[in-house]
């Protein structure tokens, strides 16, 4: 990675994170209808440490789970049952390709804020959160963890990261083999790739339970302020193209960008992927809450 250019000031403040976490908690927990005052997680037997109830012993039960006090009182083998854990594992995939660094790296700074806020909110709810930073390959990986100390680790990693100015491609598919076990995946990217990463999104969808896609866009990336003839250079592939800046060329680029967004949105709708387009000019809180609201009807 290149020299860090971001600092903690680029991350949301503690108060902003707490405020967002409170708002997001209502959208991230169980979505089933419930009566007022009900718990927000299912209480069911399973692997856990919280005691739930007792039942008669059955062949195959762990001997260490036999409650000897109840067995003596009821004069038959009784075993303890434990409350199953309702929290899930989340993995946040953050795009650090060179396309995120153009035009003042506005997209990268927005993605960092979105990733940090989402991590904080999930950790507040007791979920385990991991972080994968990808470009042409996995640039950095932080294993899943929980608790505020884990957010501190995520924040440190985000602060130290900076996308390369040129030459770093967008290969979302490289993250697939780093996803262990069932997990929810939250992708933050500009989705500027050959097929808008649709093929990689389909592959990831096979390896996770739910998939969220947050597209970061910047209106400046479809604006050319030079006049005359010049060459456009793709920061990821170094491909060149001769261009003549004529009237309406920016509108053509904006329409092309809108078409790309439409294509990936349609794909996500068909595949059950929660997709939201987020402009860097919008407040990150609005973008995330809008995405979580939309995700409740998709996932």
């Amino acid at each position, binding site marked *: 990675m290149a020299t860090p250019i971001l600092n903690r000031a680029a991350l949301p403040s503690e108060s902003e994170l707490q405020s967002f976490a409170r708002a997001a908690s209502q959208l991230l927990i169980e979505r089933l209808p419930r009566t007022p005052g009900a718990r927000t997680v299912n209480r069911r037997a399973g692997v856990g440490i919280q005691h739930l109830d007792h039942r008669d012993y059955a062949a195959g039960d762990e001997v260490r789970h036999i409650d000897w006090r109840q067995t003596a009182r009821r004069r038959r083998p009784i075993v303890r049952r434990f409350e199953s854990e309702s929290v899930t594992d989340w993995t946040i995939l953050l795009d650090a390709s060179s396309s995120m660094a153009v035009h*003042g790296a506005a997209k990268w700074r927005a993605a960092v804020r979105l990733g940090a806020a989402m991590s904080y909110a999930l950790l507040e709810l007791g979920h385990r959160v991991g972080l994968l930073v990808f470009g042409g390959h996995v640039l950095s990986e932080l294993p899943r963890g929980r608790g505020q100390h884990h957010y501190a680790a995520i924040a440190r990693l985000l602060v130290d990261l900076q996308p390369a100015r040129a030459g770093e491609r967008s290969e979302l598919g490289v993250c697939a083999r780093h996803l262990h076990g069932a997990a929810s995946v939250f992708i933050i990217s500009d989705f500027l790739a050959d097929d808008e990463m649709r093929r990689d999104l389909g592959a990831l969808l096979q390896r996770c339970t739910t998939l969220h896609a947050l597209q970061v866009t910047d209106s400046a990336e479809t604006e050319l302020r030079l006049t005359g003839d010049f060459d456009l250079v793709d920061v990821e592939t170094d491909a060149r193209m001769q261009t003549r800046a004529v009237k309406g060329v920016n509108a053509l680029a904006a329409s092309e960008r809108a078409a790309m967004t439409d294509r990936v949105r349609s794909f996500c709708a068909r595949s059950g992927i929660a997709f939201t387009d987020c402009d860097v000019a919008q407040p990150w809180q609005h973008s995330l809450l809008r995405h979580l609201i939309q995700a409740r009807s998709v996932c």
Partner: protein
Amino acid sequence: MAAFAASPSDPGTIGLLTFVTPAWLLGLLLVPVIRWLHRGGRHRRTVSVSRLSLWRLADASSPSAGERRPPDPAWRRRALLTALLVVALAGPRLPGPHTDITLWIDDSLSMLTREEHGTRLAEGLAQARSSLAEVPGANVEVRTLGDPWHSLGVLSEATVATIVSDAGRKQPNAPPTALLPGDRLHWLLTDGADATLFDWPGESRPDRTIQVGKVARNVGLERLSARRNLNDPEHFDVLLKVANGGSAPETRVVVFVTDAGEFARSSLHLEPGEVTLVNASIPASARVRATLQPGDALAEDDEIVLDLDPLRRRRVATDAKCAAALKAAVAAHPALAGASEGATDVDAVLDCGARGAVRDAVSVRVIANRTPKRLYGSVQWSSSVPESRRIRLDPERMQVAARLEARPGDFVLLSVGDEPLIVGRAGATKLLETSLDFDSEDTLRGPEIPLLVNLIFERLLDSHLLDEIAITDRGAGSANVVLSTRAGANAVARAPSATRSLHDWTKPILVAALLVLLWELVALARQGFRSFDYRGADSSESR
């Protein structure tokens, strides 16, 4: 850069446009080179974008092989700058809306020759007026060749009268270079009798020559001079120069007339172009006039008058107390005449102490107020006395009868050692004082006293008393009235020249080039600013 009038056959002329140094126009070949240098390639500006496919609709590259890539539009601006500089270096000249014309008028004596309808000068000015009337927007300035630095303004009646009244008084010459700017037309009005008037400096030539004059016969008096007769100071030797300036043999009678009446008469026969000298000895007179008989078309050179006043003897009032040797030297001097002590109409006063202090007349004062004594030391002359005019003096034979002191402002004409002998006193009236003892026997033995008296009075009267010459000279060739061969050739060669004034467009084109250069600098600055905005905004914003 020499400016010249353009004609279609002149080199460096493109239609109405004229170039002083047309070779610079080869620099226009740089224009296609500049366009070639601005063709597409790696030197083009580059802009980094997040995804190239966003701009696929703005692709300006050739869809098919062989199509040429368009050059950078900036080539037009840079080619324009180059072209303007090249054209400016070539020195473009364009005919202006107003034609500035300087009319040079030959005001020599021959221009007063009577022709059929008046003098040559009057006829020529009439021709010039009609020719100038044919030039639209002509802005005319009149100058004479006799006094070129004095502009007479426009060609008005008053100007014509001034020119006619002053004609023949000054020797005309070709115009000076400083008065021949290239952005004006120069017309010459002359009769062509003086070929030197066509010898203009450098490559300059008259743009149009108006030649007048058909009369071809004239005999004129070019010069009359006189000096004292060496044997008889009461007579003057007169020398008259007569020239036949026409094209036919002539016979004339020369008559010398003084204040006392006709004194001499001489008959002459002159071939065309012949010049002869006539000698005469006349009694001393205030003036002498020589006349040719019969007269001809140029009456102004048929008579010449010489003022002989510079040759008259200066009257010197001599003090009776002066030494005899001193009075004898004054009396023997051919240019001095002694006068009585009380005379008032004198040119100088020789004061030896009897008159007292004389303040209102040019004076020589001989001071003797002590016992004469001999001098020791070397003779020293003032540096203002030329070496050839210094008198050899022997200090051994000289004595002084007073001691002179040189005061501030005085000048010492002669001294021996540190003893001033002749001192010029500062003041409104010239006064020379000397302490030489003219009564000394040793001094009387030598020839120094007459020479010293001559030197003192020459210095006192500011003139060379022994070799004065009075002269009236109209200049060689002043009697010529026929067109010289060289002048005729020049007039014929230049007569068909253009009648338009060329204006130098170098400065306006340089100003335009400067504006284009500023445009280029502004464009480069804007481009640099935008490039910086593209490349460096990320770091500056995040920090």
